[in-house]
């Protein structure tokens, strides 16, 4: 059997260099100047592109998020995504894990893909819930912490990180793969890719269009705050101070 398609779930997040500020008890998104692919989603996309090149399978980039996320889909098209699906939700932070997964699973079904690539965790939520959750909703197997992948027909072999090292595993579609850092960075688009991507149509829909009944969120955010300020540290000059610091670690901090 051959694959019907690979859906790559991609989330747009503040660039890793962005400073996160809090105002009025909430992270201030308007202060973020640069948005990017969530880093692990880039590895998912690059791995999918390599499989597509080897076997000609369709690659569909899927995102759920506000209007600004469309730019990220165009960026995915510039490196080779065949089709783009955008489920428009203005405020993702108002959704709980159940709602996000219901939307993404419905979007994947809509694309007809039988394999899903995603990140092991998003750079904003840092959760790691989506891959396993979407897998359950699709009746698919799930493999997380994936760093390498190869396909033969509808069977995959993948390398995943474990507590003791790595494991090479085998699994058949339908399957969800949640990527850890991979072996190759996401390729850069060439000029032709960028030109073609500008013309690529993004299929934009609402959760309702997908038949997802959202219900209410079971998680309500009480507030965001900056990370607790550490009291200013003590700084010493020169290697002679090592003895002092070791003494402080023992007597002041009690950590050794």
């Amino acid at each position: 059997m051959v694959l019907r398609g690979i859906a790559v779930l991609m989330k747009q997040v503040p660039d890793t260099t962005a400073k996160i500020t809090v105002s009025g008890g909430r992270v201030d998104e308007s202060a973020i100047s640069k948005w990017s692919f969530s880093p692990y989603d880039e590895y998912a996309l690059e791995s999918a592109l390599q499989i597509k090149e080897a076997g000609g399978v369709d690659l569909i980039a899927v995102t759920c998020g506000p209007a600004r996320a469309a730019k990220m889909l165009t960026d995915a098209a510039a490196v080779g995504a065949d089709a783009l699906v955008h489920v428009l939700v203005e405020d993702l932070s108002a959704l709980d894990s159940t709602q996000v997964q219901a939307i993404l699973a419905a979007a994947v079904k809509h694309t007809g893909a039988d394999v899903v690539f995603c990140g092991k965790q998003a750079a904003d939520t840092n959760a790691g819930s989506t891959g396993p959750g979407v897998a359950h909703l699709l009746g698919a197997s799930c493999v997380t912490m994936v760093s390498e992948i190869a396909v033969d027909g509808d069977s995959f072999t993948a390398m995943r990180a474990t507590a003791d090292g790595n494991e090479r595993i085998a699994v058949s579609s339908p399957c969800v793969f949640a990527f850890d850092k991979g072996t190759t960075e996401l390729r850069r688009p060439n000029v032709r890719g960028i030109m073609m991507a500008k013309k690529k149509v993004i299929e934009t829909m609402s959760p309702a269009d997908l038949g997802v009944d959202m219900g209410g969120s079971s998680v309500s955010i009480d507030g965001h705050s900056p990370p607790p300020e550490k009291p200013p540290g003590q700084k010493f000059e020169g290697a002679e101070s090592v003895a002092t610091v070791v003494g402080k670690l023992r007597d002041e901090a009690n950590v050794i």
Partner: protein
Amino acid sequence: MDITVIAETTGDGLHPVTAQLVGAASSIGGTSTVLCPGGVGAAEAASIAGVTKVISVKGDCFSSFDGGAWAEALNSVAGGDVIMAAASPSGREIAATMAAMREIPIVQDATALGPGISVTRPIYSGKAIETSTISTPCVITLRANAFDAAGGGGNADVSTVNRSADVAVAVREAIAKASERLDVAEADIIISGGRGMGDPANFSHLNEVADIIGAAVGASRAAVDTWDEIPHSMQVGQTGKTVTPRLYIAVGISGAIQHLAGMRTSKYIVAINKDPDAPIFGVADYGIVATWEEALPALKAELRKL
């Protein structure tokens, strides 16, 4: 409140985070039933204070890891208002699958809990903290070392049930870590090296310090990307591991925001860097402005005296 705790196991015993899960459950007024996947660590779990019951869940599916199969087998045994697991890679996967099976929400990587249930967790890789209220039933995973462990002296009943599920993920080959060193995700003390170490061979000095104090050795992404000898499994940071050790020693690491994201919640941070303006000093409790060539021999000597 009845809380089901999924034990975190390490091959043949309990991971220390299991007692922390029980401690966290008690702290919000919960009583814990501990499920031991594959029956591993059941007797040990029964001796944790605050555990009312231990269920040893035995089945063929537990001989290798397939999160979907483990979740299915455990899900049929789990009861209560809240399911808790460790925010380890396998814990997160099992917990997320169980949440989806039950159509209930999950919050991952909690660092504090309060009644209600109020959950605190880092977001944006630790650049902000979120506090939310989650209604029960729900699933929560907890970050290791963020909660006080429950003590010993318990004497809970242990029962055994046989549950398995179809395994879809077949393990073809296990590739052990190149070194037998402690993993940064497991360690209480970490000493990490960056590009400032100059050469991967110089990590031997970090290994020596690590051996004296029982630490794991970590690395910055620049070290991992520059030198093949330094594997990604050692990387600390936004695209590496998030760690919360009792002590983190950064050597020749500048302290880029992506590195800080992975280690800034460490209880104590020591930085050794020759550049007095390196950003790492901004998060260090104790900063030493010196080259590692000078500082590490002194550090070894001082630690040996302890």
